[in-house]
């Protein structure tokens, strides 16, 4: 199995090094619940993510392997972190369905689509 599978709220994602990939997902709001060299299990409300170790990743077809929804502040933080290394990096964009979208790669090179819902501003 080399692509992410969704099973209800469970996502299995192949990575080259689960322990190296885990911190990336932690900044997206996941919490590590178990870890060993072969597999790290993470959780966030409504979703369980299992990072499975593989020797070779499947060929990159340009599509994201996993989509994770965060709130806008987290998205902003991640983008700002990335743009520190690459100042011309485009910021999150507004997807037609009305969410902010930002495409990142995890330490194994998996494409990750990070989305944030539009905020509901405080209208006086």
């Amino acid at each position, binding site marked *: 199995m080399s692509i992410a599978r969704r099973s209800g709220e469970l996502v299995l994602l192949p990575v080259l090094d689960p322990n190296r990939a885990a911190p990336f997902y932690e900044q997206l709001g996941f919490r590590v619940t178990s870890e060993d060299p072969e597999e790290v299990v993470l959780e966030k409300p409504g979703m369980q993510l299992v990072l499975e170790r593989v020797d070779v990743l499947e060929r990159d077809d340009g599509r994201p392997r996993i989509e994770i929804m965060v709130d806008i502040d987290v998205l902003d933080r991640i983008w700002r972190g990335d743009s520190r290394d690459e100042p011309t990096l485009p910021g999150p964009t507004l997807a037609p369905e009305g969410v*902010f979208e930002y495409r990142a790669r995890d330490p194994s090179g998996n494409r990750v689509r990070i989305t944030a819902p539009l905020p509901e501003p405080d209208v006086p």
Partner: protein
Amino acid sequence: MIDELESDRPLAERLEVARAEPPSPEAALRIALCAALAMRTQEAASALRAAADGASPERHAAVATLVALWSGDPRRALVAAERAPDHPDARALAAEALRLEGDHGGARERVEGLLEVHPFARLVAAHTHVDDEPARTLAMLAGVERGGVLGARARRIRARAWLAHDPPEPLRARDELSAGVWRLARLGAPDELGRAYLLMAEVEGLIEGGAGGSRAASWLARAHPLLTRTGTSFDQALLRSAFRRFGRRAIDRLVDRDLERPIEGFRRVGARATDLSRAAEEAHSDEAARRRLEQDLRDALADLTDQGESLIAALEGALVDKERTGRLVDVVRGLFLLAHEGTLDHEIPRLVLSLGGESATLGLASGSGWSVVSEAGSRPPELGALGTALTSALADGSARVLGTDDRVFGVVPIRAGDAERVLVLRGVGRGGRAAEVERLQVVASVASAAYEQARSAEQLRLAAARDAATLEAIRDAIVTLDRRGRVRAINGAGAALLAVPAADAIGRPLGELPGLAPLAEAAERAVDDETISLRHVDVLARARKFEDGVVLTIQELGRARQLAHKLVGSSARFTFEDLVGKDSMFLDAVADARRVAVADVPILITGESGTGKELLAQAIHNASPRAAHPFVGVNVAAIPRELLESELFGYESGAFTGARAGGHAGRFELAGRGTILLDEIGDMPFDMQAKLLRVLQERSVMRLGGTRVVPVNARVIATTHRDLERSVEDGTFRLDLFYRLRVVHLRLPALRERPSDIALLVEHHLARHAERAGRAPLRLGSRVLAELERYRWPGNVRELANLVEGIASLTPIDAEEITEVPQVLRRMSSRPAPPRSVGPPAPSAVEPLDEVERRAVAQALAAFDGNVLQAAKALGIARGTLYRKMERYGLKE
């Protein structure tokens, strides 16, 4: 200001920071700015009012322009910008106001010369070309990558330009908006976000083609709550237009939601107006309470009008189904125009009948039955047959539709104050029963509110008539101005003092009346008892701002002074002209005093006895804006310790044995807005120092035995011959009080330090004597003058004045010159100057034992940070003894 427009920091955070700043005009302006951008318009307006005093007029005007603009009132913005015609921010914002008013040429003209230096000006100019020359807009905004509201707006304008482009480029427009929305979402600017969503709906509609699809509708649904609550009327017109094109299906649901708020608002404000008008009627014996309630009632009426406008806007927003709701708008407008209860009674059936139906009857509950007030239509319904249904409708306040299809009645309860009315319509319900109930509910709410409006307006009309009579009865001159500074009322005393006929003044800006521009400017600054020089008279003016304008109370300065002195029985006679001397140290002190006279800060004057400390204090008072108010002096050293507190702060009757019936105002109260001189402050008992400090910090006093807090507005000038810094070191004077009193420190030199002034002072006092005695001025022989200059003058100028008076009195009336050194002076001059710090102290320097003990106790307590046990040990006395001594000397703090 542009910094705030360009900042990416969330507005809510910025607002919090500004609110937490210590109050100042600048902080208030920052609050106004951030609140306006966050669409907290009321907070913005209130902060702007708070900043009116003390802020730079130009900056205030620029922020006022932004606040008006962001409140959707470009005309008010233009008026505000007029106050700072050269301020770049105000110019750029005024240009935006002109653009919104459709005057694109005027907008471009207003920002001429600013385009390269002011990003907002560039933005406005680019915006004016967006429909006709989108390429030009894009060129002007190319490379403008700025943050905050300004950056987001630049993106939106570019997006519009891409849509207006030939051919349209919706994908590029979407990219621009996408970046703009991201920025706005973080900022929390709901109006700007609403506009971006609305434009996004247009973009998606164009991409989806035809009447748009679900994406366009979903963007409209996002824009709708933001723009209906924070958008301008222009935004809302665009929203309606977009709904007609892309979101027909979504609209009904949204419209229903829109109506809920104003209807609920009506209920709330109507109920409040009822309560207030009832309370105002009941409060006739308490004038202050009644006035407060009437002001609240005015506010409630203004709220009611706002709610009416919201409802009309909401109904107009629902004009997609014009047949269903269109006439309702006319009915609502009609109801609000009928300002009298009698007219409403007469017109309501006819007006409401325009919504449909055959006939209508308006009834009024009386006793257990109904009386018909008015009817319209061919066969008006009879109320008796529907009795129970009418009572139920009134009980729960809900409109209802009764009966079957061929005989349908609409029942509209109308409750205002204590009056219960009900409107019954025959033949309604053709458009569907639920929709009909909804419409009738709108009528019920609006009619109740209209009755309440009529009742409240009548009450206020009566109050206004009474106020006009009251105004005439007031002896002071009173002028009321509206928000634009136009004279709304002026009483007889006002017309006489300002030399302007009331008929000429009313309706005209005060500043345009001959010679009254300084008064208009004072009103704008909300002065508080300030002396204003008019062409023909000096006046004392006080301006109080209120929601609708300003009330100016004006007194002729001379009369105000007389009155103040009569009331207090204390006055300041001396001015700076009475201070005689040319010694540089003395002149420096006087120059400093002149400078600080106008600044409202506490002053400490030190100098040996007789150097003229009180005279200087009086001169400062007379040169200050408080000159028309009392000058009250208290010699702290001369008042027994037990009486000092009641003397300074006053007492209520029965506060202590011997207290005067009816109580007694303290010196702080008597000083009012004038000056209080605390003479010999260095001799104030330690316990009183703490009380004085509290009064100065809290700016209020409470009389002994009293419960009412009296505000302290007087300026404090303190004097002492003591070295207060030394007293602080000794522990006999509080450091915190010292710093509070010594904001400005003026030191008057001793006479021996300014010997060159002796001749001048002698001459001055001889001239005064001659004038009083009615004789020719005397001259002083050179030998005598030399003697005087040799003398050390321990009693300083006071001693010299007394001596000169004495010599002059003893000189024969026909003499022209004093040539003999009088005996008394010879005695004094021959006495050697007392050595300083050597030998036994002079009799006056010997301190009573009590004082020595008190200082020892105070020092010990200060040395051990108030630890009584340690202080007692150090003093070699028992702790109990120390407590008793602390009690005795008032050191139990």
